[in-house]
């Protein structure tokens, strides 16, 4: 009973909230008519940001502005992390991060990945947490929302995609800030710490000393979840009782993971005036997501193979899990966090049953099941264009998407975005599995060791940030390689699609006729799902076989 209630509660709440939020996000990001409140907001924004924020931009200008601001994000955070010993709010006197670790961390939070090769409570000052990482958790998520808004405007037929600086300000102050405030307030009321005092020192009942790391956790966790960031305040992320103290903080956190990625689909439908098409996309994503949650919940309800033959009462696999969240909370979260590219964890993925561990990997391989804030939908649109193209080829008609012809140039760009992702995962895994760079950093033997390498590269390429955390990944080769992959895995799938819509929007609209292949039907949903699954399976089945499936087969 409880097994079903937990995912049902989380998913139903997310779906119910996503609809009104999508409506609100449309109002916030793409104001249609002149409302008095909105106009004064825009005036203030332009006043603060200067004349460059006034005019709408062509796709190239939009990308340049985005890259310029993201470069500034990266540089600032790198500097903070390497000089935190001289900066304020450092009650525990944390030293600077080693350069390759600082590079990895700055790349990780700039790219909305939040892969963490450090442990928060061990390595970072409160200043670094609040001014470097939490700031990036806002503005990197806002970059994603800005990108998907620009993309939607392009698909609505506008050659001018809007102004990046305005979009980022809107996403930060009108979308993320109010939501984060609501979530942080709820988290505080549910018992999460929120303090700038240093560690507390306790004398335990048996007379030992326990040093209790704490900090401004509630504010951090709220935006960590809402922005599909996922980087935890503490090393073990949302398994830590300070980062997830109760059953209800777990439910709220999991809802926060799904909320904006779901709402973005509806925002896209409203901006393009194609709500039915958005509904089909939402349906495809939801179907895949529900299948993943059901499979993971069932597989993880099995006992761990480690206790075979021991006098242990039969129960679900509890290694790496907390009791207070309830039985299926770990499986539901594991799927949610990897489907959406959030990457926070409330159970240790390294200790999941072998086949359960395949599902988070598959979520990152496909990377379109709601996906990261903004970018998830962008990834799906790559598959949409592929599906439209395939369908067009099959019936022998020039493929069209939202009244614009899809031709060679668009398909080339789509394939670049589509193939960069598996190239990073397969290439990286091959190199690290064959060299001491990877093999000397493993925590588990056999196929599971390979899974640790596969997972790390999948997580970096998908901008996810979760891990099979046993991996000793704070080494120069891991820091540099995953750092580069995170940056490329972030910006290629944003820039290529913006180039596509720039190219599409420059074409003349062809009127829709009875012969047009419609993208708002169940048939299109099936074609799209087929494209996603076939491409995903072709690229990644060998990895699934060598890693999790081989491990499962090794259990006698």
């Amino acid at each position, binding site marked *: *009973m409880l097994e079903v209630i937990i995912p049902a509660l989380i998913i139903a709440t997310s779906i119910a909230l996503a609809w009104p939020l999508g409506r609100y996000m449309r109002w916030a990001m793409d104001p249609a008519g002149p409302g008095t409140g909105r106009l004064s907001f825009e005036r203030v924004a332009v006043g*603060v*940001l*200067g004349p*460059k924020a006034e005019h709408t931009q062509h796709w190239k200008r939009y990308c340049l502005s985005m890259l*310029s*601001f993201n*470069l*500034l994000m990266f540089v*600032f955070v790198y500097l903070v992390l390497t000089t935190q010993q001289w900066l304020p709010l450092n009650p525990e006197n944390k030293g600077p991060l080693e350069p390759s670790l600082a590079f990895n961390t700055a790349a990780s939070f700039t790219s909305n990945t939040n892969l963490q090769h450090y*442990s928060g409570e*061990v390595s970072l000052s409160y200043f670094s947490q609040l001014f470097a990482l*939490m*700031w990036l958790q*806002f*503005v990197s998520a806002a970059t994603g929302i800005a990108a998907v808004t620009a993309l939607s405007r392009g698909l609505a037929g506008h050659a001018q995609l809007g102004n990046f600086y305005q979009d980022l300000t809107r996403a930060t102050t009108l979308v993320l*800030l109010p939501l984060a405030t609501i979530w942080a307030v709820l988290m*505080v009321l549910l018992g999460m*710490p*929120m*303090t700038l005092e240093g560690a507390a020192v*306790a004398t*335990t009942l*048996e007379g*030992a000393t*326990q*040093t*209790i790391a704490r900090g401004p956790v509630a*504010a951090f966790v709220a*935006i960590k979840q809402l922005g599909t960031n996922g980087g935890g305040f503490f*090393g*073990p992320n949302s*398994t830590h*009782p*300070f980062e997830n*103290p109760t*059953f*209800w903080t777990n439910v709220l956190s999991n809802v926060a993971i799904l909320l904006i990625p779901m709402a973005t689909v509806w925002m896209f439908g409203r901006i393009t005036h194609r709500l039915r098409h958005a509904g089909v996309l939402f349906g495809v994503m939801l179907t895949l997501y529900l299948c993943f949650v059901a499979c993971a919940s069932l597989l993880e309800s099995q006992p*761990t*193979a480690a*206790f075979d033959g021991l*006098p*242990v*009462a*039969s129960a*679900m696999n*509890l*290694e*790496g899990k*907390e*009791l*207070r969240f*309830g039985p299926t909370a770990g499986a539901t979260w594991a799927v949610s966090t990897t489907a959406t590219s959030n990457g926070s964890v409330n159970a*240790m993925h390294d*200790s999941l049953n072998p086949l359960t561990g395949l599902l988070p990997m598959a979520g990152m391989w496909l990377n379109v099941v709601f996906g990261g804030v903004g970018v998830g939908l962008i990834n799906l649109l790559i598959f949409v264009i592929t599906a439209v193209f395939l369908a067009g080829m099959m019936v022998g008609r020039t493929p069209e998407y939202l009244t614009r012809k899809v031709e060679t140039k668009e398909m080339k760009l789509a394939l670049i975005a589509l193939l960069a992702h598996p190239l990073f995962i397969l290439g990286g895994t091959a190199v690290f599995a064959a060299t001491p760079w990877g093999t000397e950093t493993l925590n*588990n*033997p056999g196929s599971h060791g390979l*899974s640790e390498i596969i997972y790390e590269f999948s997580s970096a390429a998908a901008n996810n940030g979760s891990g099979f*955390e046993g991996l000793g990944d704070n080494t120069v080769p891991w820091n540099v390689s995953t750092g580069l992959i995170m940056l490329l895995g972030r910006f290629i799938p944003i820039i290529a699609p913006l180039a596509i819509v720039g190219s599409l929007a420059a074409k003349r609209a062809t009127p829709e006729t009875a012969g047009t292949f419609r993208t708002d039907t169940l048939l299109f949903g099936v074609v799209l799902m087929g494209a996603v699954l076939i491409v995903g399976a072709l690229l990644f089945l060998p990895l699934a076989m060598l890693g999790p499936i081989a491990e499962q087969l090794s*259990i006698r």
Partner: protein
Amino acid sequence: MRDVITSMRLFVLTILVCSVAYPVAILGFAELMAPQSRQGSLLRDSAGTVVGSRLLAQSFTQPRYFWPRPSAVDYNASATGGSNLSPTNPVLAERARQSIERLSPGAGELVPADLVSASGSGMDPHITLAAAILQLPRVAAARNLSQQQVESVVRGHTDAPTIVSLGGEPLVNVLELNLALDQLTQQSADNNP
């Protein structure tokens, strides 16, 4: 070049909003509405000394205390983490075997899985009610209390009301339970000097 200047302006604006105004507002709200839990839900003894956090496990090895779940970080609350051992790793089976040996269940008695599985944070403050019942005889004997006395304290300290009301297994907060037992023993020592 104009991009750089505009980026700098946007940087100043967003950092003031996200990293100054927002955390200060939440800090103020927490001080107003949750002055205790915002500091980490610390528990104090009668003398006012901090003995731990209600939310965090701590090490218990003496027979007179209930023991928490295993911890991969030895309950170090300043460097937390899980074991990250996979189900096929022989190290995990060996660790479980040692945990069972230490708990020494009676013949034919099965150990609840939570008592042999390390939590993800290494700091899970809870054990299942079944895991507490398994430890009853040891704790009662070490304290010269009857098993009924200890059991009534255990049942008075079950936690996780939501999970229970939805049909799940009751949980026990180990530190709170051990504090209550110490108080009980203290009282009976005062009454029978």
